[in-house]
């Protein structure tokens, strides 16, 4: 449309490069996450396309493209066993964008590629939500918007910094409305369609069954399980028991959870003995349904969550996204709740023929005990004084695992002792179960919250005493430091991992903790923003408890207000700081442009006047005089309105003829 064919082709080539770069901005983070052949294919295609544009090669015909596209789609479907879910979806998008690059001929194709770039960026955010994703979001949104601005231009391309500046300006101007929508747009708790659960697989975490050795494996992992912030009082370290799955079925070696059939009624805490705490917990995705809570949760804000069997807090769906919820718990007392006789009988069961020596020991202790409570005390004392050791790497145990632990190896980890104690309790006629969860945590001084890692995974027992379930932690008796100090300090021979060595340095640990604090703040304020925080915010702003419809009305009203404001700025706003001299000079240039030539963008007024004078000697005197007058007016100190009026009148009278011949 403008310029010669060669210029046109140069421009088109650069536009193709811009469109390809939009795809890179959106797609680059995916390249490491998709199956390698997709990444290789897309990179090769993008590279080939840029070279083809530079060299003027012909694009492949439909006969080549169509089968390749079909094959690539089939390949994705095979590699991912389907095309639903974020991973397969992003692979598919990448392949689509790559194929679109191959048929990118005109502006429409380029725009499609750029829009796919935006969508790829969206998929990046579904994959990762850490702070770096936000940084990438900002940078890539800028890059893709710049690419969109460049790719639709027809007259002249902007320079790279020019395009970036334009995109940056547009995005910054869009921010206020975006923030308004973010805060006010009604958040309807999803999901509306199936949540792919792929990301939670392979995540380390608790399981709903344990056998000796499971938790000691977990304790090597420094991965964060959740972060928690207490409102007000913080429980003492020996009360930080985060309850997870409750295991009641025992086969002699392995403890496992019962299927969640009957929901128990709400528990009542032994409030006389306990103390109430409120906290907000940000749980990392673990692909399981349980929500961690301090023992005896009384209230919680997590949507679609309820107490399941054993009063474990369960979500309706597996946790595949980071989840934030508030809860109130009472700790220290015990759970006072009715329990059916059938269930209590189940909690006494032991597999026949297993661990005979432990049973014999239990029978002996029971004879000496006056009551259930006394019996539990004796069993604990036996563990405390029996010469047991706490070790991450105990010798392996055989079929009679509890017997071997109690009488042979005398060395074990928390799951060993929890299991052994529960077996002793059951053998002594006290209903008992094993609870898995986390104990303790690391306080982050920078953000005043607690980080609970997989290494804090713990197992303990609960026994039925005096009409309620009471927590008994045999590990606390065997290795009291484990509860008060944490695992690293307790185990002198704790295995050395690179990360632990790294964090052993105090300065490094401070840095790690402060970065974690930044992340936690990010999680707390940005990622955890949801219906509850929205409601809190609006309540704080003085609104009544907002409903979805009211929120929608508010968001719509906000958007309309923003648009009206924009319209107002458009109509009445001074777009330009109106320099009267500049306007007069523009008018003069407007007079001269048609008869001689327009002023070049970089041309000074004097230079322009001289150029006019040499082209049209008949205009020279007047143009020089007008230019001088303008320069004096503009740069001669304060603006003189009378001088401005005089110049305006003179320019009005100045009517240069089209051709000098008729003068």
């Amino acid at each position: 449309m403008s310029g010669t064919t060669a210029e046109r082709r140069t421009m088109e080539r650069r536009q193709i490069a811009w469109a390809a770069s939009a795809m890179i901005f959106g797609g680059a983070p995916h390249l490491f996450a998709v199956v390698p052949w997709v990444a290789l294919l897309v990179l090769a295609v993008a590279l080939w396309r840029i070279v083809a544009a530079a060299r003027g090669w012909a694009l492949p015909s439909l006969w080549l493209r169509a089968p390749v596209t079909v094959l690539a789609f089939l390949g994705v479907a095979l590699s991912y066993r389907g095309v639903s879910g974020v991973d397969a979806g992003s692979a598919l998008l990448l392949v689509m964008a790559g194929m679109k690059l191959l048929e990118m001929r005109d502006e429409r194709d380029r725009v499609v590629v750029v829009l796919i770039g935006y969508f790829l960026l969206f998929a990046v955010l579904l994959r990762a939500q850490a702070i770096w994703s936000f940084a990438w979001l900002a940078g890539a949104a800028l890059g893709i918007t710049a690419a969109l601005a460049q790719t639709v231009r027809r007259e002249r391309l902007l320079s790279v910094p020019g395009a970036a500046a334009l995109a940056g300006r547009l995005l910054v101007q869009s921010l206020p409305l975006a923030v308004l929508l973010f805060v006010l747009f009604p958040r309807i708790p999803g999901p509306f369609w199936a949540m792919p659960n792929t990301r939670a697989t392979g995540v380390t975490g608790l399981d709903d069954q344990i056998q000796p050795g499971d938790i000691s494996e977990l304790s090597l992992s420094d991965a964060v399980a959740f972060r928690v912030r207490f409102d007000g009082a913080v429980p003492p370290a020996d009360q930080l028991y985060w309850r997870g799955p409750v295991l009641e079925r025992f086969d002699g070696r392995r403890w496992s959870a019962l299927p969640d059939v009957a929901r128990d009624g709400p528990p009542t805490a032994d409030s006389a003995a306990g103390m109430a705490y409120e906290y907000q917990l940000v749980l990392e995705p673990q692909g399981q349904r349980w929500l961690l809570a301090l023992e005896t949760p009384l209230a919680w804000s997590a949507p679609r969550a309820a107490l399941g069997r054993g009063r474990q807090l369960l979500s309706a769906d597996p946790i595949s996204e980071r989840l934030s919820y508030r809860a109130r718990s009472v700790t220290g007392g015990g759970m006072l709740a009715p329990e059916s006789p059938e269930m209590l009988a189940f909690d006494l069961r032991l597999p026949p023929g297993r661990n005979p020596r432990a049973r014999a020991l239990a029978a002996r202790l029971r004879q000496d005990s006056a009551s259930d409570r006394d019996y539990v005390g004796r069993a604990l004392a036996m563990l405390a004084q029996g010469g047991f050791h706490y070790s991450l790497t105990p010798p392996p145990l055989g079929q009679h695992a509890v017997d071997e632990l109690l009488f042979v190896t005398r060395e074990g980890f928390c799951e060993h002792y929890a299991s052994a104690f529960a077996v002793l309790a059951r053998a002594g006629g006290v209903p008992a179960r094993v609870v898995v969860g986390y104990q303790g945590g690391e306080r982050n001084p920078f953000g005043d919250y607690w980080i609970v890692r997989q290494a804090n995974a713990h197992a303990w027992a609960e026994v039925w005493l005096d009409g309620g379930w009471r927590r008994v932690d045999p590990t606390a008796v065997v290795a009291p430091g484990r509860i008060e100090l944490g695992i690293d300090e307790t185990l002198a021979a704790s295995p050395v991992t690179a990360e632990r060595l790294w964090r052993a340095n105090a300065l490094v640990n401070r840095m790690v903790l402060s970065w974690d604090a930044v992340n936690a703040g990010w999680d707390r304020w940005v990622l955890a923003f949801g219906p509850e925080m929205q409601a809190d915010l609006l309540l704080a702003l003085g609104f009544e408890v907002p409903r979805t419809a009211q929120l929608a009305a508010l968001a719509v009203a906000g958007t309309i207000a923003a648009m009206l404001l924009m319209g107002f700025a458009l109509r009445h706003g001074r777009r330009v700081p109106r320099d009267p001299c500049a306007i007069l000079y523009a008018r003069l240039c407007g007079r001269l442009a048609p008869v001689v030539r327009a002023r070049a963008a970089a041309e000074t007024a004097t230079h322009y006047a001289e150029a006019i004078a040499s082209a049209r000697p008949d205009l020279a005197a007047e143009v020089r005089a007008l230019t001088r007058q303008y320069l004096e007016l503009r740069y001669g100190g304060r603006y003189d309105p009378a001088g401005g009026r005089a110049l305006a009148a003179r320019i009005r009278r100045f009517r240069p003829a089209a051709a000098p011949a008729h003068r």
Partner: protein
Amino acid sequence: MRSLWRRLTASLGGRARGWALRRQGRDPVFVTLESRRIYILPTPAGLVFGLLVLTMLAGAMNYNNNLGFALAFLLASLGVTVIYHTHRTLAGLRLRLLGAEPVFAGDPLDVRLTLVNEAATPREEVFLDWPGSPPVPAGLGPLDSRLVRLPLETRRRGARPLPGLRVGTRAPLGLMHAWAWVHIDAQLLVWPRPAAGPVPLPNSTGSHRPHDGHQRPGDEDFAGLRSYRRGDSPRRIAWKSYARCGELLVRDFRGGGPAAILWLDWNTLPPGDVEQRVAWLTRQVLDAAAGDRPWGLRVPGITVEPAQGREHLRRCLEQLAVVAPEALP
């Protein structure tokens, strides 16, 4: 399918244009594009962009993903911001019609306009077009002015009223299309198309007009032979030398009194319809202008006194352009 679509949009565009004309009226040659006459609609790319944002919003809701929400709202807000920018690219733009040199019917008029940007922000990617013709770029820098030449098709001779000019832009992101219709109340002159072949000039001394009293060039001073120029009287062609060497030569005469006047007269033309005769006469006028004799033009109702030179030629062509068929006998 595609042509149907084109016909549909053309018809809708025509209706909208007519509506805008009724609403705005005709414009003077100097026009400022005020906000109220700028129309704005999303482009197809803009509609796809809107769909994309809605999809993202649904995805963000489903996955309860706050960064997804952030991107979706940022893009939605960008879509709104772009409306403002696209509109602002045109609002306040000034343009002035400078006119166009007359052309022969069938040749495109070279319509010249100046565009002035008095704002400190650029107005990039502005395009001008007539209905049905390709857009011409007219982007402006800050405080900039520019001369734009717009070819305008012509078909018939006479005064060509300017069609509605569309000033449009899709800047900055191609998501919105803003445009203004400018119906400048002006007419541009189109000369008649000259007949293709040479039309012999009338013999001004011709027997059918013996009384016109104009002198022929002096036959006395024969100065030699020169090559044939359009407008030379066939009587002076040296047919003998043509037969000898195949080149058209004419006998040239020098000196002797004022050059004889050539009268180009509607009534001396062979019979034909009005346009045909106008074409012949135009050809004759052009040929006469290329010759070295003064010429005059007679069309029923109009007489252009004999003269020579470009101005005279323009005057004659102008008269021929506006010959009205109903004024002829």
